[in-house]
Structure formats: structure tokens, C-alpha cells
């Protein structure tokens, strides 16, 4: 299994994945035209930087989209999942969040001091990087493939640090009830958007977000006016999203009080240089040899990084020795690496 940049030929697999992901997976709508445009966008990004990591123009929206490819003989290069990094959100279309702020309502004369949680519409994250679009097909939810998908992005960002801004975020899917309804949406969004959550979410996924700014309440929302069920959704994730959230938290991403305007799900964030995987990854030199022993449980990730478009990431069977990482010819092929080439590695 290996991570590589997506290419045009992956479009059918991507469409298949979009069909599988369903509602709430905003960034992968089941829409060929849209996905083709997305593919074109990410290809343009990779190709812009194909001759090494030239510093990016800070006002360009850039998308790095990767796929997890099954390169085993029986896998026939099937696409097992995907993940992406948006280099700077909010540059072409607005990026909205609610910030859960606190307003003090206090009076000495009344003997009163209380703080009221209040939702403030914000575009504070404009210009930040976002890790997004992570999906792993059910049949591949094994052998630490999820970790590979998730962490390969940190390897990429560490390798091409100059392409990314100071901060990074991830939006987590919010809570839905047994009827697949979002209590947060039913209590808040529904009053302002003449559509159901699915449609609102679909439009957002398609990047057609101008309606949000047009229809959203612009003034802060006092949370005591929301139903108990809606308040309980604030900053909470869908149960299927808990493992992903746990993984991001382990890297050091934290909920700083920003939530999704539709489902109330948390946005977790960090300074990119503080992300553990970015901080702890290091470069070694690759050495290829036959018949190396492999660990039973893979614990080292490695990536080649000659240029963004040449980026490949995969598990390798053993720890480095000093500044040398010994790999098998098969692992080298998987990574597209030759002996003596630098690799970025991470213990995971």
C-alpha cells in the first residue's frame, strides 16, 4: 500500500469513493463535473511545484490530493482511500465557522456574574491549511492503512514546509441522530436555509458557498436559545469520527472553540510546526538490500520527496539505524526510491 498524488486516471475510483462516503462528507460530493474540476485543480497544484518546492504564492488556493493505492499483486493498483491537504482555505470561497465565545453578563448591583456561550460567525481560519477528505474503504480498514493515510499528510507538509502556512486545521463531522438528522442544523440552520442539511451540505461541498454568507444569521447566536439537543452537539463529533479525532489530537491538534456552522462539529487546529508528526519526522538516507527482516507490526513510515508530484509514502518494515534506513527492493519500488536517496521517516 502506498500514498501517491492523485492523477487524472483515478477519476472513476474517486467517483466511486464519493458515492460511498455519503452525507456529511462535504468535500467529496458525488458529482463528476465537480470532481473533475477538483482533480484538475490538484493536478495544477502538483505540476506548479513539479521542479521542487518553490515557495508558493500566498494568495493561491492550492490542493494536494492523494490516493492510497493497493500495489500488491492481488490489489491491481486499486484505490483504497484518499486524503488531501488544502494549502490555504477561504481564499477563493469564504471559509465560515462559528467561534464559541463567552460573553460575561455581570453586575455588581444585581449580584450577578455569569458567562453565556455565544456563537460568533467567523472567517478566522482564512489562509490556514486544512487536512481533509480522508476516506478509507471498509475492506481496507486494516494493517494500519488509516494511520498511513492520515500521517502521510504530515510527512508531506514537513517535506515541503514552505508550501504551507503557519497553521493547520481539520474539520470533524458533527453529531447526527438515529434518523440521520443533525440536531444542531434542525435547531439553527433550518430556520435560515430553505433546504435540508443534505442539500446545504452538498452545495457547500460543491464549493457553492455564497449562499451561506447570504442566508446565515450575521449576528452572534446566544446558545441558551438553542435546544438542549442542539447545544449538546456543539464541538461534538459523529461517533464514526471519534478515531480520526483521537488521531489528530495525538498529533497535538486541539479544539479551540470553532465549530461547523451546519452540524456543530469541532474544528481542531494547531501550529503546523507543533504537530508531533511534523516535529518528530526526520530525514535519513535509503539503503537497499535483499532479505531484510521485517517487524511484525509496522511502525515506521517513510516518504520520498524529490518533488511534490513524486511524493510517495508507505510503511517500511524496520527502524532506521542512525541516519540509514535499510529497505527491501520491494519497499524501494513502492516508494520510487533509489539507493542513497533521502527519505523522510516517522515512527508511528
Amino acid at each position, binding site marked *: 500500500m502506498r500514498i501517491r498524488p492523485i492523477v487524472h486516471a483515478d477519476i472513476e475510483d474517486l467517483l466511486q469513493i464519493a458515492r460511498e462516503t455519503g452525507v456529511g462528507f462535504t468535500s467529496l460530493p458525488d458529482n463528476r463535473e465537480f470532481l473533475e474540476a477538483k482533480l484538475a485543480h490538484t493536478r495544477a497544484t502538483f505540476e506548479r511545484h513539479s521542479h521542487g518546492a518553490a515557495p508558493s504564492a500566498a494568495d493561491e488556493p492550492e490542493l494536494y490530493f492523494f490516493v492510497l493505492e493497493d500495489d500488491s499483486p492481488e490489489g491491481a493498483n486499486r484505490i483504497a482511500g484518499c486524503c488531501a491537504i488544502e494549502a490555504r482555505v477561504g481564499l477563493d470561497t469564504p471559509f465560515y465557522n462559528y467561534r464559541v465565545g463567552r460573553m460575561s*453578563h455581570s453586575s455588581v448591583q444585581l449580584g450577578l456574574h455569569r458567562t453565556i456561550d455565544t456563537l460568533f460567525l467567523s472567517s478566522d481560519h482564512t489562509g490556514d491549511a486544512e487536512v481533509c477528505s480522508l476516506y478509507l474503504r471498509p475492506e481496507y480498514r486494516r494493517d494500519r492503512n488509516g494511520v498511513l493515510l492520515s500521517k502521510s499528510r504530515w510527512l508531506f507538509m514537513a517535506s515541503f514546509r514552505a508550501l504551507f502556512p503557519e497553521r493547520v486545521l481539520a474539520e470533524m463531522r458533527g453529531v447526527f441522530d438515529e434518523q440521520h438528522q443533525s440536531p444542531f442544523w434542525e435547531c439553527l440552520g433550518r*430556520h*435560515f436555509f430553505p433546504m435540508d442539511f443534505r442539500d446545504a451540505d452538498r452545495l457547500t461541498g460543491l464549493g457553492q458557498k455564497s449562499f451561506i454568507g447570504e*442566508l446565515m444569521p450575521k449576528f452572534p*447566536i446566544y446558545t441558551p*436559545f438553542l435546544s438542549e439537543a442542539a447545544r449538546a452537539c456543539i464541538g461534538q463529533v459523529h461517533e464514526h469520527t471519534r478515531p480520526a479525532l483521537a488521531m489528530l489530537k495525538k498529533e497535538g491538534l486541539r479544539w479551540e472553540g470553532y465549530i461547523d456552522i451546519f452540524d456543530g462539529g469541532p474544528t481542531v487546529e494547531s501550529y503546523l510546526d507543533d504537530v508531533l508528526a511534523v516535529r518528530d519526522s526526520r530525514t535519513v538516507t535509503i539503503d537497499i538490500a535483499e532479505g531484510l527482516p521485517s517487524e511484525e507490526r509496522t511502525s515506521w513510515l517513510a516518504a520520498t520527496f524529490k518533488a511534490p508530484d513524486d511524493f510517495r509514502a508507505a510503511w517500511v518494515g524496520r527502524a532506521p539505524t542512525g541516519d540509514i534506513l535499510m529497505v527491501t527492493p520491494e519497499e524501494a519500488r513502492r516508494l520510487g526510491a533509489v539507493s542513497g536517496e533521502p527519505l523522510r521517516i516517522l515512527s508511528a
Partner: protein
Amino acid sequence: MLVVRPAQPGDLPALERLAGNAMPRLTNLPAHRDRLEERIARSSRSLASQIDYPGDEIYSFVLEDCPGNASSGDIVGTASIRAQAGGSEAYYTYRQETLIHASQQLDVRREVQVLSLSHELSEVTLLCALTLDERYKDTSAHYLLRRARLMFIAQYPERFADTVAVAMPGYLDADNLSPFWESVGRHFFDRSFQEMNAFAGVRSKSFIAEVMPQFPLYLPLLTPEARASIGREHPLHETALADFIAEGFRRSRHVDIFDAGPILKAERAKLHGIAQCGWHPVRIRPEQSLPDAELALVANQRLDGFRCLLARYALTPTGQLMLSPEQAERLDVEEGRAVLVTPLKLLDADEGEL
């Protein structure tokens, strides 16, 4: 005979009793001896001061029912005027506003109702704190007490604003709860409406206003009961509201911040009690020789000796108002002195706009 006059220190026990019996309790008239004593003193100061433009003054009046020839009687009602609703503080109201949320992309246009905290009415003159003994409700005494204030305002325009407002007590349900307060204010100041109201009366309404939500409230997020209370008067004040409308007041966009009761507004000069009043010299005639005529409010020209009572609007051919000796005495006017007169019944009792 019923007479409206400025409140005096001796009226304190009566005011306390009236305040305690008010239904619902009035924020502007706390049943609190010290506050009422201050109120009377402040009113006396306001009357004694040279005033060139409206400020922090309050003018409080009482309705006295003097039997027969007695020089004094029972205090059966009270009403006040705040020269400026906010006085030295701000007068907080919620202003009902409509925002258009339209999306070209989706081809939709939505009207979203919000309540925005406003200080816009801080400088209008406010008629307030009216309460009346139950036995006199909806009688001519009620009109006299309510409208006598306009006779006062008409005479001393420099003391009042060009706009006059009145805040009607808001809707309370069968359990005496304000649905609006329960849905809105209570989240921010966790006391019952009655407790809050008592506090506001004794201390200051703006203390509480300052801890209320400062950002606009989206109506769709309020409970249906709270939404239905917005601009709705207390059931016991429906008639009073209709009378104010007949006087020339109109419902404004503003409502009370605690109970969402309607706030009525009018240009002072357009109120019937003011627009229709006229000066007439007094002609004193024996009571039995006074011709029958429609009832009118008659006020003297005195400031701290202000008196207003009901008399027949009977004029001599030369335009003198015929009053009985007793009426003239009550008004403290002698023959030939001018009095201000306005018909008691409102001629143009049209429906108010919503």
C-alpha cells in the same frame, strides 16, 4: 369631586397602597416606601425648578376623590410623566426589525425578524406609572387621570419632548408568568419575572438591561410562546391600549425588553388631548344654572398648583367656560382667569395601525 393634582408627601401611604394593588405590578411604580417617597420629592423638585428643556424630571400626579365640599378626600389613582424616558440613564427597548436574507445563487429571499436592543427612545417623554383603584376602572375618572397629563404637557411644552410614548404592561399568562421573560431574559438573569420587576422598580431598570443580551435576537430561535408575546399587552390593559390608540398613539417598532409589551408613540402635537384643547376665560355660575353639555377636562394654569377636573364644556356666547363656584375653587381660579379645556370623549376613536 375628582381632581388630579401633583403628588405631595402626605400621599405616600395612598401611593404605597395603589402600587401594591397594581395589576400587573408596574416597574415604574414600585410598592416600596423609600422609592415612592423619593418619587414624590423628585416630582416636587421638578415642579419647583426652572426648566428650559426636558431632562431627568418626573412629574407624579394623584387623583383625589373629594366628597361634597370636603377640601380633601381619598387618593384613588396615580400617574406620572417622565420628561425623558431614559432620564440620566438610557431607556432600553427592543426594536423589531426585519432583515432580508436573499441568495441569488438559490433564488430565495427570506425575511428574518430580529429584536435589536435600542436606546432610541431614551429622549422621548414617557407617560407611565398609572394605576387606579379598581372601583374607578374604565369610568370617566380613568380618562381624567390618564389624560390630565396631556393637559399638563400642553401647557409646559419646554419641559417635554416632541414625541410622547407609553409602555403598556406586557402579556402575562394565567400563572402570571411572562413567556417572553421565560424565553429570553431568564437565561441571562435567573429570577422570576416578578422578582426581576420588583428589583427593577426599586433599583434601576438599566442595571438589568445591561446584563441582557446586547446582540440582536433572532425571532425564529425564540419559543413560540415568547414570539406570540411580542407587542402583546397584558389582558387587563386591552381597553387602556385602545384608548391610547384613540388618543392618537400608534404602536411603535419598540417593545419592552423584559415582557415585550407594546410601546406606543405619538408626536405630541398630534395627540387629541393636546391638539383639541383651547383656552377659555372662566365665568362662574351657580351650579344649578349650568347648562348640560359634553364632559371636558379643565385644567388651571398653575405649575406646582396644577389642577385638572371634569366639567361640562358649556360656553357662554362670548366663549367663556361656565364653572360652578365649587369647580372654580377646586381649580383655584377666579372669574376671568383662563383655563385649558379639552373634550373628555375622543372624537376620532379610529383603530390603530399595527
